């Protein structure tokens, strides 16, 4: 039999034209059509030892769902995909596949790896649009009679809640905001992750029998001790990001200097891009500087463009090589017109008479020897100060843990950084019956790593509950 010819290039995916999309909030990537998805799926070699699976923090059954797609059996593909992943439409869009599953794909040695992320999105979206299967709790799972409180309805909490519900436990998910989804709703913009997709995934989790209680800030509305008193047998803490970090330079509290959290929350959660139809306003001007080099900086810069900015700068103190943002997001931002000012660091923000920011003074940097993080340390170049005229600044430097739960929960050991000390493999904290995952355990990280933490904790909580 002739050896099957492998196409070393992946099927390209259609995107909105950069000039058009830079002015709207519609999704940038249009996703595969049926024929494209099947063609791309056919590139998968169905390796006997699928290393792609090991690269996935939640071990999605990658070869299985792709094989079903090759065979055109969509119900089977959906079952395989959802077996390990309760939020596949989200992961297909925002996971850094290039450093997880796709980097491990054997095709990557010779050419382009299978576009696992795009296929995941295709199958997951198909399920949202067409699936008639009832994929809620399998009928052979009997209720355990145990109750678990999951704190925070972001990626970690949703994943943990879904897994525990599938295992037969009664789960209540407590969310501080007025809607479930966490960073998927307030942080990641509509054009990268449509909110109707997030809501559909949340609805899937509730279809498993999970109760969601909104407007409940655990630590304030109820303490962890209250939850145990109410009869919960275990608590999983995944409250997410806390206070934004700032540069601590002069002028940072001027008007129109935003944290990325505030800027993105106004735009995504509160839909300020539709002001005045929506009540929450935003003041995003025509010349915007975004400080930072991560995915959040890319999201903020691209939102600023869509809000009508003429010039948007990314200010980053190292070189592009050191930027933590995904390559795909950097490319998208550049295509849309975001200007990268690398090896540049802000020194102070300068205000006008109304205390609105009107400029940022920066200086140039060069790279020295590698520092503790392994990245080359940026060093200020003398006499390179210059002023950049701006009317909006957005600081995207990450977040600090929120102190509300640690300060109201006795018996929780903290790390030096203020996160809750957590065993990475199990999610266990220093307090019996309390698990933790997501940003509160690790500091700011990715959606999928939070989901992985939720999944591992669910397995450990299940074992704990069954031994009670």
């Amino acid at each position, binding site marked *: 039999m002739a050896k099957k010819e492998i196409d070393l290039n992946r099927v390209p995916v259609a995107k909105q034209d950069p000039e058009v999309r830079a002015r709207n909030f519609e999704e940038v990537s249009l996703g595969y059509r049926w024929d494209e998805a099947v063609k791309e799926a056919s590139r998968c070699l169905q390796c006997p030892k699928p290393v792609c699976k090991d690269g996935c923090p939640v071990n999605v059954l990658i070869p299985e769902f792709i094989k079903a797609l090759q065979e055109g059996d969509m119900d089977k593909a959906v079952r395989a995909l959802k077996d390990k992943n309760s939020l596949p439409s989200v992961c297909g869009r925002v996971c850094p596949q290039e450093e997880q599953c796709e980097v491990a794909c054997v095709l990557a040695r010779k050419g382009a790896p299978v576009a696992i992320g795009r296929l995941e999105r295709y199958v997951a979206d198909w399920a949202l649009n067409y699936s008639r299967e009832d994929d809620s709790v399998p009928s052979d799972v009997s209720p355990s009679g145990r109750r678990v409180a999951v704190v925070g309805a972001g990626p970690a909490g949703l994943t943990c809640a879904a897994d525990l519900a599938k295992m037969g436990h009664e789960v209540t998910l407590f969310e501080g*905001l007025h809607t479930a989804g966490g960073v998927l709703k307030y942080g990641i913009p509509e054009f990268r992750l449509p909110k109707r997709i997030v809501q559909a995934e949340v609805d899937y989790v509730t279809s498993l029998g999970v109760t969601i209680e*909104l407007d409940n800030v655990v630590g304030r509305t109820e303490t962890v001790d209250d939850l145990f008193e109410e009869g919960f047998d275990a608590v999983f803490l995944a409250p997410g990001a806390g*206070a*934004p970090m700032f540069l601590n330079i002069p002028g940072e509290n001027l008007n129109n200097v935003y*944290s990325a959290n505030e800027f993105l929350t*106004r735009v995504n959660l509160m839909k300020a891009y539709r002001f*005045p139809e929506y*009540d*929450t306003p935003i003041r995003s001007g025509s010349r915007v500087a975004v400080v930072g080099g991560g995915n959040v900086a890319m999201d903020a810069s691209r939102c600023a463009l869509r809000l009508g900015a003429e010039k948007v700068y990314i200010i980053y103190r190292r070189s592009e090589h050191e930027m933590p943002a995904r390559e795909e997001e950097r490319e998208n931002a550049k295509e849309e017109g975001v200007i990268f000012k690398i090896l540049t660091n802000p020194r102070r923000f300068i205000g006008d008479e109304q205390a609105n920011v009107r400029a940022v003074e920066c200086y140039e940097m060069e790279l020295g020897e590698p520092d503790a993080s392994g990245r080359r340390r940026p060093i200020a170049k003398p006499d390179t100060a210059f002023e950049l005229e701006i009317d909006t600044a957005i600081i995207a430097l990450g977040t600090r843990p929120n*102190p509300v739960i640690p300060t109201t929960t006795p018996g929780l050991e903290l790390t030096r950084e203020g996160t809750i000390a957590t065993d990475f493999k199990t999610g266990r904290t220093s307090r019996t019956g309390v698990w933790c995952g997501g940003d509160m355990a690790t500091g700011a990280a990715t959606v999928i790593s939070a989901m992985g933490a939720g999944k591992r904790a669910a397995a450990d909580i299940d074992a704990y509950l069954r031994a009670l």
Partner: protein
Amino acid sequence: MFPILEKQDLTPVIHLWKIRAPRVARKANAGQFIILRHGEEGERIPLTIADWDREAGTVTVVFMEVGATTEKLAALKAGDAIDDFVGPLGKPTEIDRYGDVVCVAGGFAIATIVPIARELKAAGNRVVSIMGFRSKDLVFWEDKLGEFSDDLIVATDDGSYGRKGLVTEPLKEILETQKVDRVIAIGPTVMMKFASLTSKPFGVPTVVSLNPIMVDGTGMCGACRVEVGGETRLACVDGPDFDGHTVDWDLLLSRQRAYVDPETVSVARLHQCEGGCQNG
């Protein structure tokens, strides 16, 4: 949903709601606030807690019509329900046996200071209260604050009721003539600023309750940052109470004005719609 059990119009523009919110009621303490939101398009706004009943599971809030959102909220009646009502947020006001305490409140913040005066009184303090209003038609809860005060002074800017003048004048007189161990000042930012400036030369610790613009109100967004003692703090989790003598008042005042222009747009739009606009 959080039902409005009772609505009172304390003045034509200041309204009181008693809301059924058992979880909030169970934890509420003087000085804390809630965030509410109503309607799919609604914004999140913070309101301080004026009272609570743990048994009945109710929380009382008081708000003044100052913009499009509060104007829309004012149209809701008993029997209606609000979509989101979350709290209690922020740290409670520190209550201790200080000795002689002066409570200064202006405008609708009278509602905030009443439970604080009540707790201070219950803790064994001598409480002197000063309440200030623009004019007589805005005066409310004189009897309520009086109930927890050993002495009560009412002042109006135009002299239409009580003493004529600002709250800082009686405050200064008291500081000059009596022993004062603590001042609590809550009201419009300008009032809190000048109350703090008045007490500063006397070296009397002065607590203020700051009301910057907030979005999430739970310590995530940083919109409510204020500078106190040269440090940036978040009013929603580190406050809302701070040392009035070290607050950067001018920064707070300028940050509070950040959305004046968009607010004008919202109010204009609201009034236009009242004339019968079809597409919301």
